[in-house]
């Protein structure tokens, strides 16, 4: 009880920072890739042709009902098989994250596009714009504004999700801390630190999003 050793944090600091860098990389790639793929999926789901819309709908439904850990396992084994040689867990995890988060970004983008009233599209078409021009100049600018808070909240969720790469032994912030925890026998100090760091980051990000949303609404 009395023999906490907080010095373990100072000693393992560089190692933990490397972990945090990997977490940041995962968030960045998952968000960038997820947004691009999610946008494509959202357009597919809005298509009038069932052959285009149905596969996207099925994909999104599956990804949203399956645990992220299972998806991580899937790609951990599938990617080396498809490529034909070992690629390391980072590549598999990045692919898994992009494909998984794309389903969630797709739904956010789709609802944002849907929130722009149909009259806007009709009016724009009536002015002689082509469909892609309507999307690019009329629907997207308005939709993007509507979805920014949801997108930012999703980024926070992705950051929390990245801690799950623990299961494929990828050394993100959570996993480096757990390595130190078991190496030095200091789980109490390390997991408390992890919780405090995640709480500080996610809480201030969430507050910033809230503030931004409120400032814009006012």
């Amino acid at each position, binding site marked *: *009880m009395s023999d906490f050793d907080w010095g373990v944090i100072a000693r393992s600091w560089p190692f933990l920072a490397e972990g945090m860098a990997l977490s940041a990389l995962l968030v960045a790639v998952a968000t960038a890739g997820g947004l691009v793929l999610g946008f494509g999926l959202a357009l597919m789901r809005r298509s009038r042709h069932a052959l285009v819309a149905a596969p996207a709908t099925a994909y999104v*439904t*599956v990804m*949203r*009902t*399956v*645990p*992220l*850990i*299972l998806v991580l*396992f*899937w790609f951990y*084994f*599938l990617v080396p*098989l*498809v490529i*034909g040689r070992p690629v390391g867990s980072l590549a598999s995890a990045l692919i898994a994250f992009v494909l998984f988060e794309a389903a969630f970004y797709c739904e956010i983008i789709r609802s944002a596009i849907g929130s722009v009233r149909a009259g806007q599209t009709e009016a724009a078409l009536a002015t002689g714009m082509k469909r892609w021009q309507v999307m690019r100049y009329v629907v997207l600018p308005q939709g993007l504004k509507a979805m920014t808070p949801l997108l930012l909240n999703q980024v*926070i969720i992705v950051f*929390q*999700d990245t*801690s*799950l790469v*623990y*299961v494929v032994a990828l050394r993100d912030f*959570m996993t480096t801390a*757990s390595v130190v*925890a078991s190496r030095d026998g200091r*789980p*109490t100090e390390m*997991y*408390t630190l*992890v*919780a405090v760091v*995640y*709480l500080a980051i*996610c*809480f201030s990000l*969430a507050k910033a999003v809230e503030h931004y949303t409120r400032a814009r609404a006012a």
Partner: protein
Amino acid sequence: MNYTWDWGILLKEPYWGWLWSGLGWTLLISLGSWTLALVVGIAAGVARSMPARFLPAIASVYIQVFRNVPPLVQLFLWYFVFPEIAPESVGLWIKRELPQPEFVTAIVGIGLFAGARVAEQVRAGVAAVGLHLMPAALATGLRPLQAYRLIMLPLGLRAIFGPLTSELLITVKMSSISLTIGMLELTAQSRHIENYTFHGLESFAVATVVYLLVGLAVTALMRALDRRFGATRYRREAAT
């Protein structure tokens, strides 16, 4: 792709039995943590919407902390840290006498995480129904708690059936993180089969389909409940 498929292997023992027991644990953890999440979530959601000062503040701290720490970290805190920092007698009891410690920890960890999310929905539901019903309820002679129990909560919960369905689905998926503390639930068992047979893709495929079926069943069940008790029924009746 160089891979020999062998679906038959999953029907052989012990692998077939492993999948079933994995599904059993997944359902048990989901049910247990969902029950805890509903109890804590409703309590915190109601406390958060109260006009007093002290209770909403406590509920708000609970919601912020448990929403902003990744569930995996929360699980590790309950499993590795809580027994160490709890009063010595409690800590010793957890370490020596608590039956099924991993199972109980999984329910507590996932349940309290989901509870914070449920609390936000409950608060939104109560707010949507309208806190303006409160003075009317009090004017009829109900005490504040009675007003919540008899008016605000029933109406508020009906309004949030949809969001609660999503939260329940998230809880089912979240049950998979308990594999990190040694629960052999569905995802863990499919991984386990990979370890033994090198036929991971088949076992992951089966697990994926099972999660889909559970998800569909949960959605259908919640829809049926919504039709029977939820707000959609009242909307429909109002429309006709």
